[in-house]
């Protein structure tokens, strides 16, 4: 086992580093990284982004959104959350969650906290979840990773994630809310997340004898940066990769009621119907047609509405108002 030294707190970079270790690492040893992100929501591989997050809150607070390679639900990261990732050969360890969660449980034992596995994917303290785990397999290799809530802002977590709030029907993976807790609330003697990180690193190194730590070369860092730029920092991956979904948006405004039905695939509007009590069905056909193929993001929708001239169809609304209604 070798620890790849990583001090980045950039969520895009850290997710890119995971993929790099999984697909391009050629060293002889199994690797692990311990990492923290500045505030971010990390969604599962097959989740619908819009369905899972409170986008206005993310925008307002500058919370970054990134899609990960592994499955499961959305999680909130901040500097109080420690993440661990191991990349090993798949053969015998596939779906063996206990092997990888054991070092976490042992590290906690060393600071006087009793934790246990719960179900397949979680680790809990007194029945409350502090660690969620997932795996991804690719060409004979296995990536196991997990979150560890040490001293996270649970209030911000609740605000950033809002599963089930929107009226969306999609086939994507839905998040499940759990009762969560921070490790720090269970300590008899206070320690910092950095100290816990060192204790955990020592436990992970015990999984297999290995040479300790490894510093990525300039060329390797550049490869991770390229993956960051071309994939993890892109709208196409983080939003566009969402499974297809159907959505209905309604609003009662001073002049009447509007009812919009949408189908979104690969992050673009695939079909669209607009109904209202102020106009006849069919009057909106050109507008509906114009929206097909537009990126499902209010800025893009606004540009489309400006181009077609919304005033001719709906003089009561301005472009931004309708764009935000459609995408909000």
């Amino acid at each position, binding site marked *: 086992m070798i620890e790849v030294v990583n001090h980045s707190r950039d969520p895009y970079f850290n997710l890119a580093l995971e993929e790099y270790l999984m697909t391009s690492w050629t060293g002889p040893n199994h690797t692990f990284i311990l990492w923290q992100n500045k505030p971010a929501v990390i969604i599962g591989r*097959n989740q619908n982004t819009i369905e899972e997050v409170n986008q206005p809150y993310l925008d307002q607070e500058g919370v970054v959104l990134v899609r990960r390679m592994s499955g499961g639900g959305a999680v909130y990261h901040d500097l109080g959350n420690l993440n661990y990732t191991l990349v090993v050969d798949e053969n015998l360890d*596939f779906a063996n969650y206990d092997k990888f969660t054991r070092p976490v449980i042992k590290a906690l034992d060393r600071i006087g906290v009793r934790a246990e596995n719960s179900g397949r994917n979680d680790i809990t303290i007194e029945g409350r979840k502090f660690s969620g785990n997932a*795996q991804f397999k690719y060409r*004979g290799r296995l990536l196991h990773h997990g979150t560890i809530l040490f001293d996270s802002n649970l209030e911000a977590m609740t605000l950033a994630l809002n599963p089930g709030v929107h009226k969306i029907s999609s086939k*994507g993976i839905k998040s499940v809310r759990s009762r969560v807790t921070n490790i720090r609330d269970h300590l008899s003697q206070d320690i910092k997340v950095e100290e816990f990180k060192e204790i955990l690193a020592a436990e992970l190194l015990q999984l297999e004898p290995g040479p300790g730590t490894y510093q990525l070369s300039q060329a390797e860092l550049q490869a991770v940066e390229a993956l960051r730029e071309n994939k993890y920092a892109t709208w196409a991956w983080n939003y566009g990769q969402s499974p297809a979904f159907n959505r209905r948006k309604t609003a009662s405004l001073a002049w009447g009621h509007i009812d919009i039905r949408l189908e979104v695939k690969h992050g673009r509007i695939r079909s669209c119907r607009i109904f209202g009590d102020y106009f006849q069905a069919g009057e909106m056909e050109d507008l509906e047609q114009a929206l097909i193929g537009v990126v499902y993001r209010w800025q893009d929708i606004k540009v489309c509405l400006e181009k077609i001239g919304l005033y001719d169809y709906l003089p009561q609304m301005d472009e931004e108002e309708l764009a935000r209604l459609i995408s909000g």
Partner: protein
Amino acid sequence: MNIPKKLLYTKEHEWIKVNGDKGHVGITDYAQHHLGDIVFVELPELDEEVAAGESMGVVESVKAVATLFSPVSGQVMEVNEELEEAPELLNEDPYGNWIAIIELSDQGDLEGLMSADEYKSYCETLE
């Protein structure tokens, strides 16, 4: 474990049933068994060009996300949209439920695949 004789197999546990220049592609019994309950299938795109040994989608189970590799190069002629509604069909009948039909661009790709007997021996080395 069920390994039908007439199919060809990859090391990544996909099968292909070839008929002329058309191939039905799916995942094996071994794959579905190891993955456990499958909860999501990301299908390739219709008309998409796929390459032998390259990613063409993902399968998510309660245990892990696994990449789906195309056994051959060619164009996607059809995808099994039923799996979007009912991914568990891959657990229930992995050989009865294909994922995509690919029009082969190079019959030579088939030489790189395993026969049922070879695949059986390969799986035994993994146990």
